[in-house]
């Protein structure tokens, strides 16, 4: 191996040295990440973390075993997903990345507030890392919590180029626990990512084996009558979508992994009787949303996207791509529990086990059936002919949310905090929002559905986290109302696999979205598509206006459900150019990406 830069010549031996110095045993190289140790990290016995002020990461492509099969992932320090990076709030981070691939690479530190040139997005404020080169990201660590990192080059993230990033707090956190485990969810495919993307381009339903069948048709006819069924069918066809398009890449190609382990590996997190555990759950998937639960245990959500929230006891939570949630659990009895993460489209799952001893298992819950989109997402389709709905059977509309429709239904306002609306002209609420009438800070937008966990979840069955539950402990520093609103439509053409903002792919836009340095603005996403989109803004927090008034939570990634309008307040306090995109990897690659320039 020889490299053009002396800085970059990391030999295998040096790499081993580095790895050893970082606390990785050499035996761990080439295996699954050391941080996925079943012992987790207790306050007394730290295990398997890569930490300190000088961290070195070597990126290479090598053969590993995944789910019992030979695979060729991208590894970091010999593991895929990569090592856990553990930083300390208040330190200066130094992360040296050596590119041992034969193509450019990069690492984006997802959710971290840092200078734009350290953000790791090639082509924006950083050139990328050429083969054989190193890049050292140096930045002050100004926050704490659960985050992650991943490649921002091409489709490399799909090859396992990702890992957890934990920042220990400088001050005590608003909760206590005895031991912690990281649960990193990813979606692995044995296909090359370029081939997955090609399949999506050629035939959008390529991975969708759950299309409606002729048997479904006759069932519908029996239930709804022939005319209604035909009307409904033709409506779906006119909209160029299939009611079962919940995920566009599915379990038909994906093997879902927990800490790099497939269900058959039964990755196990250990606890001692009486311990309280903090689980740091990260969705590092390319394309997959998960519904996470641990049957038999109540989970108390204590942080979202690394930021503390007032505790919410739940039985299940949905985690969008790129989000993180921290939960506390207290297994009281000496038994095993199944950690169950079911993909949103129900095409697969990954399970692990929480147990006092290795080798224990608990039952795997019965899998839920795929849900129909029904009418819930129709709201976003402006061109929809309402007259076509006349003959529809109302039973088919149960999932429908009127909120996003032009003639707004006031029933939507029930979930709103009316106390926050003092001084507001209610006459403005008729129909669509007028241009001049800004909603009060923190109020939920008409068309939002923050009190709904999303498709395929029956909230009556168990307590499921919703965005409405998320509440900060105290207001964020910038309490100015927004000076303006910027509304973006999330747009797509499913059958042609085109994804964009405001109907323009990244390759078609003239320039960046401009934020004035120092301004406070309201970002609104109106999802006009049939799919969920996790929208990620680099460099600045988005304060999700979920109706919590002054205590709105702040996040780095916001999920917009089909037909939903989601708003967030942003303080444009980070000069420079930043990426802003849908975090579904193939959507981003297809063009659902913009540059935000703060100047």
């Amino acid at each position, binding site marked *: 191996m020889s490299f053009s830069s002396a800085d970059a010549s990391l030999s295998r031996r040096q790499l081993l040295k580095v790895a050893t110095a970082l606390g990785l045993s050499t035996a761990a190289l080439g295996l699954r990440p050391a941080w996925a140790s079943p012992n987790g990290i207790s306050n007394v016995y730290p295990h398997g973390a890569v930490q300190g002020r000088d961290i070195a990461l070597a990126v290479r492509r090598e053969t590993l075993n995944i789910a019992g099969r030979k695979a060729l992932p991208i590894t970091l320090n010999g593991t895929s997903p990569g090592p856990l990076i553990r930083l300390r709030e208040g330190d200066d981070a130094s992360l040296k990345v050596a590119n041992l691939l034969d193509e450019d690479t990069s690492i984006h530190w997802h959710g971290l507030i840092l200078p734009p040139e350290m953000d790791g997005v090639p082509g924006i404020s950083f050139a990328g890392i050429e083969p054989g080169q190193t890049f050292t990201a140096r930045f002050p660590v100004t926050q704490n919590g659960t985050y992650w990192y991943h490649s921002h080059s091409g489709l490399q993230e799909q090859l396992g180029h990702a890992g957890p990033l934990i920042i220990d707090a400088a001050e005590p956190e*608003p*909760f206590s*626990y005895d031991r912690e485990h990281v649960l990193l969810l990813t979606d692995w495919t044995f296909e090359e990512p370029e081939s997955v993307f090609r399949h999506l381009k050629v035939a959008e339903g390529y991975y969708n084996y759950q299309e409606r069948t002729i048997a479904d048709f006759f069932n519908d006819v029996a239930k709804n009558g022939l005319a209604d069924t035909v009307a409904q069918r033709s409506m779906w066809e006119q909209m160029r979508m299939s009611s079962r398009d919940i995920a566009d890449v599915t379990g038909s190609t994906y093997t879902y992994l927990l800490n790099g382990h497939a269900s058959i590996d039964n990755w196990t997190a250990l606890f001692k009787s009486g311990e*309280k555990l903090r689980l740091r759950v990260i969705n590092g998937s390319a394309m997959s949303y998960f519904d996470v639960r641990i049957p038999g245990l*109540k989970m*108390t959500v*204590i942080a979202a996207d690394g930021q503390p929230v007032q505790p919410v*006891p739940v039985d299940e939570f949905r985690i969008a791509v790129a989000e993180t949630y921290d939960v506390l659990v207290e297994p009281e009895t000496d038994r095993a529990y199944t950690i169950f993460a079911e993909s949103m489209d129900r095409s697969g799952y990954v399970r692990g086990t929480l147990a006092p001893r290795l080798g224990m298992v608990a039952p795997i819950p019965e899998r839920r059936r795929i849900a129909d989109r029904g009418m819930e997402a129709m709201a976003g389709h402006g061109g929809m002919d309402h007259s076509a709905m006349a003959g529809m059977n109302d039973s088919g509309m149960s999932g429908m949310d009127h909120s996003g429709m032009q003639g707004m239904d006031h029933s939507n306002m029930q979930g709103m905090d009316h106390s926050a609306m003092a001084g507001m002209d209610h006459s403005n609420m008729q129909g669509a929002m007028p241009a001049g009438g800004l909603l009060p800070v923190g109020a939920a937008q008409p068309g939002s559905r923050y009190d709904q966990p999303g498709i395929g979840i029956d909230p009556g069955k168990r307590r499921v986290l919703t965005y409405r539950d998320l509440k900060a*402990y105290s207001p964020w520093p910038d309490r100015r109302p927004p000076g303006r609103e910027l509304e973006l439509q999330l747009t797509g053409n499913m059958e042609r696999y085109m994804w964009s903002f405001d109907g323009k792919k990244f390759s078609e836009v003239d320039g960046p979205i401009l934020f004035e340095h120092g301004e406070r603005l309201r970002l609104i996403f109106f999802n006009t598509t049939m799919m969920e989109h996790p929208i990620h803004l680099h460099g600045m927090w988005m304060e999700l206006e979920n109706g919590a008034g002054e205590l709105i939570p702040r996040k780095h990634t916001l999920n917009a459900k089909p037909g939903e309008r989601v708003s967030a307040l942003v303080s444009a306090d980070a000069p420079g150019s930043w990426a802003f995109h849908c975090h579904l990897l193939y959507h981003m690659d297809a063009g659902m990406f913009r540059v935000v320039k703060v100047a």
Partner: protein
Amino acid sequence: MRQLLLAITLGLTATAALAGAGHDGSEQNISEAEIDRTIEVTAGDLWFKPNDLVIAPGETVKFVIENLGQIEHEFVIGAADAQKEHREMMLDMASGDGRHHDMSAGHHSAGNNVMPAVTVASGETRTLVWTAPDTANNDLIYACNIAGHFEGGMHGELKVKD
């Protein structure tokens, strides 16, 4: 902290014998003279200090609870299982937006027994006077039962013993 513990210890030896018997826990109209000891408790997000308490049988204690946290907390004394039952009931009752427990103190009943409780807003200080049972008891805890707060760490043992 150390001073507080010292105060508790001193208080125990000095006043244990004076404990008035027969007070129902919820009774608030006890005169200052009947109070054997004052215990300062601080509540934060999401913790209590001290972490546990030892109180003599029959002792009448005035708890002074200061909320240093940014959100509301409560201080409830009761058997661990009764408090657990209460939390579960609160969760079951809550639906939709009503998830956040905002019951005023005094509604914390477990069966026929009312659990002594006080709710303290952020930045405020409230008191609760309580007389320990006449016999040693290891079942009692103090807790904040607002949804998720107990799980976050807001509980401690309250041992009744000589």
